């Protein structure tokens, strides 16, 4: 008779070759480091070997034990052999500065080496240094630029991947020590326009209700987003709701998988959003499907809106959007008659040169129907990064201090001058895109980059390349040698999510604690300590005993976080605002009675043309975005064995009818060209993409979509229009 193999200590003691589980494992309750859903999970760790073995979903408010492929298998980047382990200083022979790797150097469209950065190409240009030398050099050069040219010559990019504490300290360093408000982060590239519209409309940029409140909604609009791939666990709750009766109106020119669960799927022409929403409002107002009580009590500007949308008859909107008038009427009726309706939106709305107008329309849709502040109603811009909400709350924005307190208001400036003990600049700082422009012009000369990789994430990479080369001094703090770090004078090895304690605020406004599972490799250090070190060396002492102490300082200067601390956040966190953390989980739904701005302000929008239109040479519209398995510039996910195995390469998705015209079939190599540059990649033929438009994911350095994108920005949100530029495609005969 055969016996079972049982994995117990006895089997290990007997030296059985099959007993692979380490005798001692540690379990750490923490969070997923990827998207804004903020799934709670447990890392199971082999402490002796400093390795995470696997993860397990926890019963957190955002995820109820569910995870997606990234949360489940994407943690191994932290243990990758390419982690930076020693401070690096650029060698004298490697000046004048410029890109180093062949991937970053080459501005032609030739096929570039894919996958991970080749360290053999980069490391010879740098020498290892001790911490004191590297920090002294960084601080003294930044100080020298500040003292010679003024604070305005410095700028800092923080990151929405960092914790609230890191974001708070980073903006404090820039404002207090650099003496400028030139501090921004990647939120500028994702929801800046939504936040601008929300602040203008209701006085708060955060979501008004949580994702899982969709179970109480009768109708939900899911527009400009692809939650199945980009917010996978949130998507499972939307689908839960849909199977239980919530009617989804899914709107996206590129058909997202969640459309399979929709009552209505609408595929408007790219860039025609304003027309569609104005058309729906036209229907609702004409048919009296609006909440007049709500409008009278809580909304201003309705008459002006009514006047504008009156021009958007279903027939006219049908022409503008390519949809049928019947569908526009049906969508308006569906949304207008619902007792409770909510709106989710993503980058398809915000990443347009008229992104603010798009968001204004969605806000107006909710306001004229009274769909906010009750269960199943609300506005939910789905946040991308795990801490987009928190990094913005912490003041990593050039116009505002923590908690959206304006730098232009002298009383607020005075308050923070007292709080931090120094004079502050009254001048609004520059945004991400403006800082790059200023670097190119030479007015910004020194930068501190914490965890951002603008070389791949910003539009028009060829311009970013010149801007980064033009900087007099650049210090990059990161966990890998990113493309951006190739332009650095000093590189500081930092800690990954799995190596630090910190709070992260998810898309639902839930503040949760991430806890360390690993020791940082080599000499790598905690990000928050490095900010303090730079500050100390530039003459402003920053001393904290712990991350908790930083949180307390941050929370105390805000309204939304002031009741929270590490003790009451506990293992599962709280939603803010949270009046009494002892008895409450915080508010799932806000603005039931009033808005922070008092009444909601409606701002009507007119349809405008995209900044760049297709032409004979560039006949297709390029849409960019993400895929399920990868994250932004790929520095994490392309170093995850599982994720990079499942999705190893860049591609351009082409509609079958367009492919036929171009003579393209699946797997062909193609050159994609825009007015700014060109890239070479493989074709995937799929009817998910609307005819006349192609889709390229942004993650792949060998064929970076942002070589092509247009740096034109939304005038209010200052967000680039990543979702719309004109491109041409040419088939290549053979593999390049």
């Amino acid at each position, binding site marked *: 008779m055969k*016996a*079972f193999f049982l994995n117990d200590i006895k089997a290990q003691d007997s030296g059985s070759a*099959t007993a692979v589980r380490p005798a001692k494992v540690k379990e750490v309750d923490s969070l997923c480091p990827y998207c804004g859903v903020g799934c709670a999970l447990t890392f199971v760790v082999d402490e002796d070997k400093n390795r995470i073995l696997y993860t397990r979903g926890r019963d957190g408010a955002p995820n109820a*034990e*569910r995870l997606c492929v990234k949360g489940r298998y994407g943690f*191994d980047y932290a243990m990758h052999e390419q982690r930076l382990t020693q401070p690096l200083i650029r060698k004298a022979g490697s000046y004048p500065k410029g890109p180093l790797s062949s991937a970053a150097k080459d501005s032609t469209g030739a096929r570039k080496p894919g996958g991970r950065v080749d360290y053999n190409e980069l490391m010879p240009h740098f020498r290892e240094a001790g911490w004191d030398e590297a920090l002294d050099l960084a601080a003294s050069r930044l100080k020298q630029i500040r003292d010679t040219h003024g604070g305005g010559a410095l700028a800092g990019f923080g990151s929405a991947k960092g914790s609230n504490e890191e974001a708070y300290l980073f903006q404090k360093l820039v404002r207090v020590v650099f003496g400028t408000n030139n501090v921004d982060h990647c939120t500028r590239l994702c929801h800046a326009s939504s936040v601008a519209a929300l602040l203008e409309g209701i006085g708060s940029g955060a979501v008004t209700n949580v994702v899982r409140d969709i179970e109480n909604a009768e109708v939900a609009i899911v527009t400009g987003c692809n939650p199945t791939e980009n917010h996978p666990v949130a998507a499972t709750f939307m*689908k839960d709701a849909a199977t239980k009766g919530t009617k989804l109106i899914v709107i996206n020119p590129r058909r997202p998988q969640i459309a399979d669960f929709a009552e209505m799927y609408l595929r408007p022409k790219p860039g025609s959003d304003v027309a569609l929403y104005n058309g729906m409002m036209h229907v609702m107002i004409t048919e009296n499907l609006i909440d007049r009580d709500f409008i009278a009590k809580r909304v201003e500007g309705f008459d002006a809106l009514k006047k504008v949308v009156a021009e958007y008859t279903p027939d006219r909107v049908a022409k503008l959007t390519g949809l049928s008038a019947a569908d526009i009427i049906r969508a308006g009726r569906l949304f207008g008659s619902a007792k409770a309706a909510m709106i989710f939106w993503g980058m398809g709305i915000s990443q347009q040169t008229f992104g603010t107008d798009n968001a204004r329309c969605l806000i107006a849709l909710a306001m004229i129907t009274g769909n906010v502040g009750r269960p199943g109603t609300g506005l939910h811009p789905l946040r991308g990064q795990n801490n987009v909400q928190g990094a913005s709350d912490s003041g990593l924005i050039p116009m505002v201090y923590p908690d959206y307190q304006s730098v232009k208001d002298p009383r607020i400036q005075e308050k923070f001058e007292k709080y931090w003990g120094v004079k502050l600049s009254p001048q609004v700082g520059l945004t991400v895109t403006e800082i790059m422009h200023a670097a190119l012009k030479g007015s910004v000369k020194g930068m501190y980059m914490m965890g951002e990789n603008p070389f791949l994430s910003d539009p028009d990479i060829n311009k970013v390349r010149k801007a980064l080369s033009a900087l007099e001094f650049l210090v990059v703090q990161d966990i890998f040698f990113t493309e951006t770090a190739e332009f650095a004078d000093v590189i500081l090895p930092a800690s990954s999510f799995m190596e630090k304690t910190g709070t992260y605020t998810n898309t639902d406004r839930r503040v949760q604690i991430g806890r360390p599972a690993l020791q940082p490799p080599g000499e790598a250090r905690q990000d928050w300590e490095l900010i303090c070190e730079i500050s100390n060396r530039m003459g402003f002492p920053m001393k904290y005993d712990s991350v908790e102490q930083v949180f307390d300082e941050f929370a105390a200067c805000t309204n939304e976080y002031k009741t929270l601390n590490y003790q009451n956040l506990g293992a599962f966190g709280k939603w803010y605002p949270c009046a009494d953390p002892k008895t409450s989980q915080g508010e799932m739904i806000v603005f039931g009675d009033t808005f922070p701005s008092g009444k909601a302000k409606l701002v009507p929008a007119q349809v405008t043309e995209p900044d760049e239109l297709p032409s004979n040479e560039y006949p297709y519209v390029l849409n960019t975005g993400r895929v399920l398995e990868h994250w932004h510039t790929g520095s994490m996910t392309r170093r995850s064995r599982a994720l990079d195995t499942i999705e190893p390469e860049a591609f351009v998705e082409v509609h079958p009818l367009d492919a036929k015209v171009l003579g393209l079939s699946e797997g062909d190599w193609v050159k994609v060209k825009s007015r700014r540059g060109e890239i070479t990649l493989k074709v995937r033929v799929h009817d998910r993409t609307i005819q006349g438009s192609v889709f390229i994911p942004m993650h792949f350095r060998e064929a970076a979509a942002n070589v092509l994108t247009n740096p034109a920005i939304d005038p209010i949100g200052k967000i680039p229009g990543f979702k719309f530029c004109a491109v041409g495609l040419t088939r290549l005969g053979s593999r390049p």
Partner: protein
Amino acid sequence: MADDNRKLINLTIDGKPVQVPEGTSIWDAARRLGIDIPVLCHSPRMRPVGVCRMCVVDIGQRTMAASCVRPCEEGMKVEASSAKVDQHRKMLTSLLLSDYPEYSAREMSTSNDQLLALAKKYAIQDIPFADGATGMPRGTDMSSPVIAVDHQACILCDKCIRGCDELQHNDVITRTGKGYTARIAFDLNNPMGESTCVACGECMAVCPTGALTNKSVFAEMQVR
């Protein structure tokens, strides 16, 4: 959700009285009393289906009832831990273990094979009808980069199917075959790695046996 307006039912479980809203399963009522009834196919996160029968209890009727699906009734006297019930569960464990592979990938990696935990509990040391597993006739599927499939260790509890279809709504996993050849399948019986699986790992997380396991953790542990 609608707990509030439901009628309350009185019953005893192992002699302890308990009052629950109408419609509550015996399994849930027992949990309120702190009585842990073993299950393989059920989890509070899922719709109960009562296929593994491990949660059987004696309600004084001719046959035992699967407590995860059986609603409580007024005046019910439930024996959840008697020798007779235990005897049944031991037999069920033996039957589920027939043909079970000698090495369960779950037991070897994450050490939480729930079927083997029951084997331990009931002191079943040898594989019943072990010959049925010789040559692994039910097959394996190693095509997914992250999830290993060992059909030999599958007890058809349907947890993966509910995890995939009802929790994550990916609608990839289903059943195929009849009788001895019945097994789980991906899409129209494709290899997992070539199916529409999005590798969320829910099936692997909810699987109670060595049937669906984490390939990465196995690789990670064997690397060293």
